[in-house]
């Protein structure tokens, strides 16, 4: 079965501390993994996709096929990073995205 698991509903860290948002997936084949973010009162927007291997707003995510993980990391959290973060997998069909439950990240001053 295709599944995305984000084990933490809520993650609260202090400003300047490192952040790691966990994402594990279940998929047989070559997955495409994404991180979407939703800031307060804003719409869902793409943050990262594994295929680009880029860093956006200081965030990085590496696809680890051995551990079936795509954790999102940032070495020094900023208050503006507070948001809801969703990990998503592009399924076999190539159309639909399969979503994790989301992690609410709160950066404390």
């Amino acid at each position: 079965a295709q599944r995305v698991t984000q084990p933490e509903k809520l993650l609260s860290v202090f400003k300047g501390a490192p952040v790691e948002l966990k994402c594990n997936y279940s998929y047989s084949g070559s997955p495409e993994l994404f991180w979407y973010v939703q800031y307060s009162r804003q719409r869902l927007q793409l943050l990262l996709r594994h295929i680009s291997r880029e860093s956006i707003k200081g965030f990085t995510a590496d696809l680890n096929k051995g551990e079936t993980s795509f954790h999102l990391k940032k070495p020094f959290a900023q208050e503006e990073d507070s948001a809801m973060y969703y990990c998503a997998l592009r399924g076999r069909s190539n159309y639909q995205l399969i979503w994790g439950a989301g992690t609410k990240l709160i950066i404390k001053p």
Partner: protein
Amino acid sequence: EPEVTQTPSHQVTQMGQEVILRCVPISNHLYFYWYRQILGQKVEFLVSFYNNEISEKSEIFDDQFSVERPDGSNFTLKIRSTKLEDSAMYFCASSPEQRSGANVLTFGAGSRLTVL
């Protein structure tokens, strides 16, 4: 920056009534989607649409649901005979192409549907 526009932002309806949610995708995008998120639950795929036909639909997208692109700009989701469990935030999204690595979705702000 171009946006996906959704109307209404919030609709309250009585159980059994028909609802139409409207979306204006980004003008040069070719692929259109509807997702929904019931409060406290995961975002769920409903349907994808390309070249004036459904390209994929989920188990949720049963005969109660239909999509249409009536005039080349709007993309609508119709829910016939709404049920209480249809209460959710409905997101429209569009993307320019489908090939691997290029399937980046742009989402609308969502339409909140409340069924009483």
